[in-house]
């Protein structure tokens, strides 16, 4: 009896304030979509870091015979200088950071070069002698690039130290800015949602003030009086969350899986599975929005 009565009251309220309920649903939908998008972009960044940071390495280029770098003033790197740099890289002080050091000889560099550009006319004229020797250093933690760079750059015979990770940084920067934008919009929309739900509950409570005053008079508990209002807010917010999840699912399904993933096969993109992973989070936020709004408005408008 109780459940049926409360639900009947609640749906009656939703029907009476249909326009408000729909607007609550839509605002929650938009705000949660932005929350979800921000989370998905962060997941994408984490995915890429996982995949790519393993592959990226620090390249220590040694002087070729015609370099203008000040550390190469004495001409091409000598065997002693090369050995010295290798010793530093493999020293105990750097072993905490350095995972592996691989020496790429001129010949190997030439081979790789030919493989990449060999079909070009100009490339076939490049000889192994024109290439330069380098050490390819993989790190335990790619973020610790600076420590290694500080140790070896500036030594005689080292032309330059290149962090391959730096190539990826602009991409991550863009993605992080997208996250910030998304999160900012999410914050504004969430605030709007709270205010709107509060207003909706208030209107609903006012339009039923006679009913609630009678309920109080015959001894209905506070909880019983307030429950239908809370449910109204919660149902509208949950419908919004469901819409947001649906929207994100379609977005990821068509934009990411159907288009981006087809075009850039080498990138591990977020997928619809990730949308399901964050679905409980979005629903939770939706419920939280409704709960906060209910607490704010009900304590004031349906007092015993």
């Amino acid at each position, binding site marked *: *009896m109780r459940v049926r009565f409360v639900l009947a009251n609640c749906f009656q309220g939703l029907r009476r304030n249909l326009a408000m309920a729909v607007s609550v649903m839509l605002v929650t939908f938009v705000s949660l979509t932005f929350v979800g998008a921000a989370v998905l972009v962060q997941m994408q960044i984490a995915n890429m870091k996982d995949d790519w940071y393993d592959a990226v390495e620090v390249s220590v280029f040694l002087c070729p015979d015609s370099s203008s770098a000040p550390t190469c003033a004495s001409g091409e790197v000598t065997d002693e200088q090369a050995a010295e740099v290798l010793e530093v890289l493999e020293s105990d002080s750097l072993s905490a950071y350095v995972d592996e050091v691989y020496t790429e000889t001129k010949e190997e560099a030439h081979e790789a070069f030919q493989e990449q550009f060999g079909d070009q006319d100009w490339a076939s004229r490049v000889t192994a002698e024109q290439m330069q020797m380098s050490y390819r250093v993989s790190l335990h933690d790619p973020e610790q690039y600076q420590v290694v760079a500080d140790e070896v750059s500036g030594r005689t015979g080292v032309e330059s130290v290149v962090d391959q990770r730096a190539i990826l940084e602009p991409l991550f920067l863009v993605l992080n800015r997208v996250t910030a934008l998304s999160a900012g919009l999410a914050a504004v929309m969430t605030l709007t949602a709270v205010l709107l739900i509060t207003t909706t509950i208030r209107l609903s409570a006012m339009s039923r003030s006679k009913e609630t005053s009678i309920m109080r*008079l*015959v001894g209905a508990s506070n909880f019983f009086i307030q429950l239908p209002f809370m449910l109204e807010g919660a149902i509208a917010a949950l419908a919004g969350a469901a819409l947001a999840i649906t929207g994100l699912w379609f977005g990821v399904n068509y934009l990411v899986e159907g288009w981006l993933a087809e075009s850039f096969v080498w990138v591990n993109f977020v997928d619809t599975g990730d949308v399901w992973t964050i679905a409980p989070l979005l629903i939770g936020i939706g419920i939280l929005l409704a709960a906060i709004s209910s607490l704010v408005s009900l304590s004031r408008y349906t007092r*015993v």
Partner: protein
Amino acid sequence: MLPRLARFIHVIRFQKVSKVYARGARPALDRIELEVERGEFLFLVGASGSGKSTFLRLVLREERPTKGKVFVAGKDLSTISQWKVPHLRRGIGTVFQDFRLLENKTVYENVALALQVIGKPRHHVASTVPETLEMVGLAGKEKRFPHELSGGEQQRVAIARAFVNRPGILLADEPTGNLDPTTSVGIMRLLDRINRTGTTIVMATHDDEIVDQMRKRVVELVDGQAVRDQARGVYGAER
């Protein structure tokens, strides 16, 4: 009388109760000392603004006294917690001059609401509501809406709603105020019947004819003070 015994006999007890709404204003109730026994029928008479409604609101704990203590069914209302107030009200039925029925609900639904919102099981509602409607003389009008009924019938619905949970106390605030004399007599007969079932009734009114006819206990309030407390009394002592 021993205080422990007193709580079983007095359903309502006012102990030097004063109520001041605004600081510095004349008190709405001024040091009221009153006991209402179980099963009693009490008329609270006096002009508008004499404190009758305030008295009823204090019993319902819609207001708290500025000074003094109110006991209802042996409980000191100043000590019961806010969340227990609904339980207090389940033992008190209330009827008003303006009926306060829900226009969009039928007679049956209006009365059933009182049981539904306190979580009574469905079978209890289904058996008690028709029984109560029959008792107040509304059998066969269950499906009518309030606007399809006369004033007297609407007040009967309100009384049914107040009495459907079989409260120990029934408070009536000018229940005949909107009704013509003939209809009022019918309502008073109904209240008298309810009183005979053992329900204590406190009725605020300024309908002198009714008070004079019923010959029940009369307490007269003037400017918040109880100036007269008379068993089997009449409306105005001077008349």
